[in-house]
């Protein structure tokens, strides 16, 4: 106890020292004035004191559980596998519940609320898309927003120049974004995790810079205004009606994306992605074509971003390069990381937390990105698996008499 108080106090003093010139002082160089904010010292001190205490406690607990689980890993697999099958069912019910709740939301909510929920669901689909690349295949893509931009601009430009509609733009944008994904995939095939991250980051920035500077085609930083919303079988809906319609479109997209991801996960390609993530060399040795698997991951991940790009353009009826900065990528990535890499329910939960919570806790809005950043660090340190750790599909043998099994084993050995 005394030890802890001493340690935390030292840390509190250290953080006060660190934050002093930035948090307490603010100097205006032109007016020659210094703005003192002494009260902040108190907050930093108290915050650092308690957070460091909690931090140490959880770190200790994590280390202890790591040690104790090492010895017990063998032998319990049979009992856990049944447990996990049950858990998958629980997930299914949870998903169903969320969907039903979501479906009735627009009937009770104002247009503004509906619009927030639409945004949250857009991030669910984006998260599911990035989940394919990062969560399943383990390729850290920091330029995911580029594909989102490709989708949005595809609709914006096709509509501006050729008058194409929303529904026809969706498949075009999806395919275009997917081919961009493959295009990015080809040069980075040989790169390992960290290099890959930087190159994709660079790619994302290149796309944004091109959109900003290629005035002739993209109208540059001023963007494309007046993008129409989808019409409901030719009927023009009002503003509120439009929102409700968009809501159900995105809900349908969420369901399709969820089912698709689920099916992909247990398909041949999905399993090869997991193998790729776990150990690339072993994966190659097992005869998996890693080139094909990587390109498929990039392409399919980008496909969803392209589609949501179209949706984004329709919803906000305006696209400009400003919407596609690195921070958009970072938010989508934090959804995937927070939710648990590769986990569908986790992505939904995380998108809900990260997008809805700041909307409803207005006082938090300024601190949103600060908390996102801190959450990413905390998650990686304490719970790298995310909120809902993805459960691998397991095959359970049909129940049989153990003696029979033993006999069979013996006979097959001899």
């Amino acid at each position, binding site marked *: 106890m005394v030890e802890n108080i001493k340690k935390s106090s030292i840390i509190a003093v*250290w*953080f006060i*020292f*660190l*934050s002093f*010139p*930035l948090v307490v*002082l*603010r*100097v*205006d*160089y*032109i007016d*020659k*004035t*210094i703005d003192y904010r002494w009260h*902040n010292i108190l907050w930093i001190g108290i915050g650092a004191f308690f957070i460091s205490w909690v931090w140490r406690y959880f*770190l200790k607990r994590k280390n202890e559980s790591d040690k104790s689980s090492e010895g017990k890993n063998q032998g319990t697999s049979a009992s856990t596998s049944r447990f996990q099958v049950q858990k998958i069912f629980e997930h299914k019910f949870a998903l169903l519940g969320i969907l039903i709740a979501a479906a009735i939301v627009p009937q009770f909510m104002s247009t503004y609320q509906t619009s927030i929920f639409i945004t949250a669901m857009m991030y669910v689909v984006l998260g599911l898309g990035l989940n394919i690349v*990062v969560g399943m295949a*383990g390729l*850290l893509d*920091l330029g995911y927003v580029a594909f989102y931009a490709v989708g949005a601009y595809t609709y914006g430009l096709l509509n501006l120049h050729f008058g194409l509609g929303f529904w026809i733009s969706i498949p075009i944008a999806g395919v275009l974004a997917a081919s961009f994904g493959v295009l990015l995939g080809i*040069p*980075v095939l*040989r*790169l*390992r*995790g*960290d*290099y890959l*991250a*930087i*190159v994709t980051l*660079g*790619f994302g*920035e*290149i796309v944004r*810079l*091109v959109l900003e*500077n290629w005035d002739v085609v993209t109208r540059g930083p001023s963007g494309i205004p007046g993008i129409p919303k989808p019409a409901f079988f030719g009927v023009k809906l009002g503003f509120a009606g439009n929102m409700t319609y968009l809501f159900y479109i995105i809900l349908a997209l969420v369901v399709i994306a969820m089912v698709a991801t689920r099916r992909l996960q247990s398909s041949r390609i999905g399993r090869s992605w997991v193998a790729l993530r776990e150990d690339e*060399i072993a994966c190659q040795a097992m005869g998996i074509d890693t080139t094909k698997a990587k390109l498929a991951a990039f392409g399919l991940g980008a496909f969803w971003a392209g589609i949501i790009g179209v949706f984004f353009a329709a919803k906000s009826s305006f696209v400009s390069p400003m919407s596609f900065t*690195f*921070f958009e990528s*970072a938010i989508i*990535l*934090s959804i995937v990381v927070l939710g648990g890499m590769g986990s569908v329910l986790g992505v939904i939960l995380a998108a809900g937390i990260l997008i809805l919570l700041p909307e409803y806790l207005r006082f938090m809005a*300024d*601190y949103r*990105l*600060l908390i*996102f*950043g*801190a*959450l*990413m*660090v905390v*998650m*990686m*340190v304490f719970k*790298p698996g995310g909120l809902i750790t993805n459960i691998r599909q397991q095959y359970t043998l049909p129940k049989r008499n153990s003696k029979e099994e033993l006999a069979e084993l013996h006979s097959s050995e001899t």
Partner: protein
Amino acid sequence: MQALNESGSFFLELFFSGLTRGSIYALIALGYTMVYGIIGLINFAHGEIYMIGAFVGLTVAGILSILQFNLIAILVLAALFAMVYAAAYGYTIEKVAYKPLRGSTRLAPLISAIGMSMFLREYVILAQTPDFVSFPALTEGLFDLGAFSSMIQPTELVILIFSFLMMAGLFILIKKTKIGKAMRAISQDREMAMLLGVNSDRMISLTFMIGSALAAFGAILISAHVGQINYNIGFVVGIKAFTAAVLGGIGSIPGAALGGIILGLTESFATGYVSSDYEDVFAFGILVLILIFKPAGILGKSTTEKV
């Protein structure tokens, strides 16, 4: 003749501005490369440390100029404080975000680093300002160049001289001192170095601190040259410095210096002779090309992965 002379001086102007840029990239790239060399991690928050260094420098310079210190004292103290604080931030970041992750998956420290970088940007926005603020021209009056001022500005000359001095100091530290030897030992084989009595945790902390201090030093010099800073300056510079580190061969210290200068010159000539709109595209383009054709970089050793 007149035209030739003009194009010649334009060339020299671009050359020196490229060299200046390059030496700043090199200073920051050293931080990336040292950390990568020692623990194999790309410290994504490095650009943010550079930015924090600039803000600390601004605060110190502001206070001292209100107290009416003379310009050289302000410059020295601002740089000193910025370096000390950057080192302290680097140390803390390593302890909080990277050290608990040693021995986990490859992706985890990288994501933690991105989170840290987001956190620091927002921290500066909230604690200081989201807008551009002007930075005092501390280095302007140090030299009087007279006739040469059309080719190179005095602030650029200051950057060149001091960054080369810093790099030289670092080379001596790495090659000649016991600390440098310990660092090199850890980057070759961490376990073996520990067995031979090198305190690896302390060396890793020290590496972060040195790298951060160099970045902050660069930040003060370039901010005094450009004249304004905001929370976002670390992002682009960070990526470019990383490009420089990769270009020279990540993990190699002379490589980082060389890579920085090559990148700076390329960018400067490309913006001067081709188009200034796509300035950043050139840097990213170079990065992508290098990673495709020579991932080990100019001075790096290509390693084969053993199973």
